[in-house]
């Protein structure tokens, strides 16, 4: 009897695992192709099988993509644009997260006349497509003298990101009991002291969620990057596009693949490092006092 059960169990398990492995394979196949292709030389790519492992792996394509591939007429590789992206992403993520935390805290725990309307309006900001704000934003950046600058791009991302970060923090803070605020008020703490001593220490999960979200959004942004950057301030996504579209002689698929992986690496790294907090943060919220 027990052996029969065991067999049934095994068949079920085998079935489930094979399906999971099958879909995982389909999901990972493009990454596999990109990675193997980036390690092949151009001759092997032309003659060989797409799925085959590289016969003689080489990092030539990676080196070229990083430091000497041409984007348009500029042949310095992706490196300068990578640092452009870093210089855009870090301030934009930090500022939009801090502003969002303050907004969320105020809207959740210090309600004032019209605060619900304000929150609704901010929420609306999450649903405004990028394309709609392109022209007015270009005009604004021009007026501020920030057109084609890294600072300008930071400003755009902060403004666009605050709607999301506010939403995240507000919904997280709504779950924190208001009695904590009342107790702290009676203890003599004010708006900032309560935020600093009580809310910030409770906020690790939502900070991680917001930072991952903002980092991914801003790093992967292409449209704002292509519209508002000048020739020297383009982020890596725009440079990647230019690199792939610039053909000097034949198409170098290996360099394209290596460049694409380089462009995606930071967001991958963020997920690997903080991914477990991401899941935890999305499901957390309830604080047991």
């Amino acid at each position, binding site marked *: 009897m027990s052996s029969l059960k065991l067999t049934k169990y095994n068949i079920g398990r085998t079935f489930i695992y094979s399906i999971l492995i099958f879909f995982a394979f389909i999901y990972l196949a493009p990454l596999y192709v990109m990675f193997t292709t980036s390690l092949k030389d151009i001759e092997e790519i032309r003659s060989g099988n797409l799925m085959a492992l590289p016969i003689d792996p080489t990092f030539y394509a990676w080196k070229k993509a990083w430091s000497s591939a041409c984007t348009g007429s500029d042949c310095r590789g992706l490196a300068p644009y990578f640092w452009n992206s870093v210089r855009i992403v870090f301030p934009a993520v930090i500022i939009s997260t801090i502003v969002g935390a303050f907004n969320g805290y105020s809207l959740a725990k210090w309600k004032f006349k019209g605060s619900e309307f304000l929150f609704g309006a901010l929420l609306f900001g999450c649903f405004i497509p990028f394309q709609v704000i392109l022209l007015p934003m270009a005009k604004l950046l021009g007026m501020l003298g920030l057109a084609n600058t890294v600072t300008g791009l930071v400003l755009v991302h902060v403004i666009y990101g605050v709607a999301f970060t506010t939403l995240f923090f507000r919904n997280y803070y709504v779950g924190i009991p208001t*009695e904590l605020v*009342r107790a702290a008020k*009676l*203890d003599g703490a004010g708006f900032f002291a309560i935020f600093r001593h009580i809310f910030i220490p409770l906020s690790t999960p939502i900070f991680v969620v917001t930072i991952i979200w903002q980092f991914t959004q801003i790093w992967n942004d292409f449209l704002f990057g292509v519209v508002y950057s000048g020739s020297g301030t383009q982020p890596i996504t725009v440079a990647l596009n230019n690199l792939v579209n610039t053909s000097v002689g034949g198409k170098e698929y290996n360099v394209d693949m290596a460049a694409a992986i380089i462009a995606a690496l930071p967001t991958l790294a963020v997920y690997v490092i903080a991914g477990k907090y991401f899941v935890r943060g999305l499901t957390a919220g309830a604080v*047991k*006092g």
Partner: protein
Amino acid sequence: MGSISLNGINKSFGSTEVLKNINLDIKDGEFLILIGPSGCGKSTLMNLIAGLEDLNSGEIIIDGKNVSEESPKDRDIAMVFQSYALYPTMSVARNICFGLEMNKVPKDEQASILKRVSELLQIDHLLDRKPGQLSGGQRQRVAMGRALARSPKVFLFDEPLSNLDAKLRVEMRTEIKKLHKRIGTTIVYVTHDQIEAMTLADRIAVLKDGELQQIGTPYEIYNDPVSHFVADFMGSPGMNFIECIVKDQNLVIESGGQKYELIIPCTEALIKSNLDVVLLGIRPEMLTEIQPSAADNSFVQKIKFDVEVIEPMGADTVAIGQWNENEVMARLSPESGNSAGKGFELQVDTSKAILFDPNSGLRIR
């Protein structure tokens, strides 16, 4: 020190009037209980005293100073919340000292206050723990410790025991009473539990639908309630209410298949009221088995009582039957009560019976 005067307090949320013209004077060092059914406005009144809600009209005077417009921190009040509201990321010690820290009390003074308070509440072994690692009773103590640390003029307790199990609740009740004896600070305490109110209070204020029904000592509230509502609210098992026809200044009841005329103490008021039908209120402990010692009391009568249900409670047994088709509870000794049935010989003592106008619910006196 910590006297409180509430003068003509009104509060509404939108179009709902939560509190209507509340006037209440609380003496320094008094233990005042605000009691009422849920939604009567008792918690709102407490939040108004604390300054966590704004008044619509009226004034709050603490220790001779009008604080109606002042923020919570300037009122010198500490509050213990129903959910305890301990800061979850801080240790017990920091929870207790947070108020001192915010008020810039020097570190060494904080340490000595922490020592005194934690020893008083016997939580000195818990100081490094986080609230999440404490049991309900321990959290309760820490919440009280946080309130005590600042030595405020007034303590507010918002249903502090309602999250504890029955046994712990009785223990903490005694502790709170001892604590009040020791420190002598004014306490305003909100509850919906009438036993808590009876055992703890110097005076009880009964609220209903945002109106103050009665203020008095537990004895007054229990024995001399102003209305049907107050009489019904206090006491467990509750007071019996029987609709009776008035006949020659006596009340006619039908019990155990026979008619009786009950003699009552407040006949003058009854005559003055000119009512044909009144509501008789009599506490279950006035209905007992026959006791020879009560024989010469002129208000004591013997009647037949058909017991339908008995509820043994250990110390005594509640027997339930009917008078005039109104449910009546009698409080019997277990010896005679546990075997009570049809035609039980009941002794009725009407010396503390009270009468209500069945239409308005107000006392006839």
